[in-house]
């Protein structure tokens, strides 16, 4: 049917608070309430971290990498360390490999619980936000107990890790893990059995397996679409090769894969449980020994100064594969450093997810990949936007309204 009048509208959303608390801009083509097309604009928080990294020595870069993202403040320096260790031929002691697993899994617990709270908030369940973040607080307490810090952990060292876990610390760790186990069922029941949660998330923001593979989706976003991809299980790094665990796809719980927001919740929830098991396994199996290959920093730096070559460091961050490429040429600073955060790969999958959805679903669908814009962009510029903008409050209001409509 041909028509002379324009039937669709362009709505720019963002870059400030576009449904999430991070800067990214969406341009939606809207037909009534329905999204016809989406365009994503990035780059609002690019900080030139890679460029700055080539002006620092590798140990200074660890602390810079930690500041790429507040939530993934462990996996970025670790991926960089993995690459540098491969170039310099540094063998990491076995005990450090296990300690590295414990910290990676603890970070995953913090991140997934934080995300669960944000997802609940996006659809108007603020009481659940407080419930989950109370749990997250305990996870942060444990992080503080193990690393001395709550957010930027400062635990990574090239060739190992900076702090050991001694036997007298085990009771405290087990107590915290038990707390998560006791509360897991409560959280699972809210997210997976609640009628309203199901109504808002089932069949919403679907990403098919074909699209996930084609667009190189990573992490829980890809796994929720049934793609078995998890760096922890695909390639051997740290002590993951010694531990007993498997890929988590939604069919392990429900027997089917839909690739919708509900499936992404399942994957993340089950991964929290998996992380708890991995920490317990690591504590049990951890061998005795040194925690760092070279404890003298000056000696380590002298060794790194001679390193020449290129390598990649990959690890599974809470949001998916984090990828660092490092080239060193026998000088003090790395010659080139490329950081690829998981959200970088999960931007394009947003487009098929959002097409055909309603405006009120934008917050939950956009949040369902657990995006992290500061990870993806690394230099700062502010874009002027004079067009009509739906701000975060307005979008959030619409999302909450939709929940109320479904459950009066």
């Amino acid at each position: 049917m041909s028509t002379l009048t324009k039937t669709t509208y362009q709505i720019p959303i963002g870059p400030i608070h576009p449904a999430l608390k991070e800067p990214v801009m969406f341009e939606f083509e809207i037909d009534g309430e329905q999204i016809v097309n989406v365009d994503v604009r990035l780059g609002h928080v690019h900080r030139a971290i890679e460029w700055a990294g080539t002006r620092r020595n590798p140990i200074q870069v660890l602390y810079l990498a930690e500041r790429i993202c507040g939530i993934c403040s462990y996996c970025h320096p670790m991926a960089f360390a993995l690459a540098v260790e491969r170039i310099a031929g540094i063998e990491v002691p076995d005990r450090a490999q296990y300690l590295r697993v414990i910290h990676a899994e603890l970070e995953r617990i913090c991140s997934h619980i934080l995300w669960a709270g944000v997802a609940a908030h996006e659809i108007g369940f603020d009481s659940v936000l407080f419930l989950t973040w109370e749990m997250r607080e305990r996870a942060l307490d444990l992080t503080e107990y193990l690393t001395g810090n709550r957010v930027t952990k400062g635990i990574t060292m090239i060739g190992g890790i900076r702090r050991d876990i001694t036997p007298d610390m085990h009771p405290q760790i087990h107590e915290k893990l038990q707390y998560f186990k006791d509360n897991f069922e409560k959280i699972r029941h809210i997210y997976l059995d609640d009628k309203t949660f199901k109504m808002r998330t089932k069949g919403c923001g679907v990403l098919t397996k074909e699209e996930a593979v084609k667009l190189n989706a990573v992490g829980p976003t890809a796994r929720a679409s049934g793609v078995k991809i998890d760096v922890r299980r695909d390639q051997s790094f740290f002590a993951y090769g010694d531990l007993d665990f498997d890929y988590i796809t939604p069919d392990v719980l429900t027997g089917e894969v839909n690739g919708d927001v509900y499936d992404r919740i399942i994957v993340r929830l089950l991964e929290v449980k998996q992380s708890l098991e991995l920490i317990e396994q690591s504590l049990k199996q951890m061998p005795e020994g040194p925690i760092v290959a070279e404890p003298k920093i000056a000696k380590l730096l002298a060794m790194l100064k001679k390193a020449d070559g290129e390598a990649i460091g990959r690890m599974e961050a809470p949001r998916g594969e984090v990828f660092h490429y490092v080239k060193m040429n026998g000088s003090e600073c790395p010659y080139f450093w490329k950081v690829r955060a998981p959200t970088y790969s999960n931007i394009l999958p947003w487009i098929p997810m959002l097409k055909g959805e309603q405006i009120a679903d934008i917050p939950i669908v956009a949040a369902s990949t657990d995006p992290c814009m500061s990870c993806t962009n690394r230099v700062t510029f502010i874009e002027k936007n004079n067009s009509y903008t739906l701000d975060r409050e307005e979008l959030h209001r619409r999302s909450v309204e939709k929940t109320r409509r479904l459950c009066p």
Partner: protein
Amino acid sequence: MSQESRLTPEQIVQSFQETFPNNIRDSRIERHTAGLKKTELVHIWMRMDREKFKDILKHIMTIDKAPHLAVVSGYDSNETIELIYHFSVYHGTPYQELSLNFVVSLPKADPTIETITDVYPGALITEQEKQEMLGVVVKGIPVNRRVFISDDFPKGVYPWRRDETGPAKMVKNLHHEVKP
């Protein structure tokens, strides 16, 4: 992917060398182990010619129907611009995944390369990034615009370059900059 059809790292390198005898320059297989069980991880590096680079990258599909493209990284090596296509194959089976890294050199006088988005649609953002950061011209890129740096950033300045088109001059004068 069934066990029978899986190639070893050596067979993969051989497969590329046999299919493209004149276009694969040198190859390196990097092995590391981790954990008490010493589980192995393999990274394969190959240098390829620009002429056949797209056919070479298409050839990955004969090894694994659904390869994963992590990112395209690239740097200025003073004489040339090096691009590295980081793929991985055989994910989904525990500890069988192999990373394939393909390096291609582009002369600075003509830093053009064909797009691979028709074969790997997920490469769009990373190709756009190479255009703005390194001044590479990606021929046939479906959406030709900046992605990470803003539209008011000066044209002809490429943040990852180390020559006169690099950002050195801008960085040196940062304190003079008057913010609007």
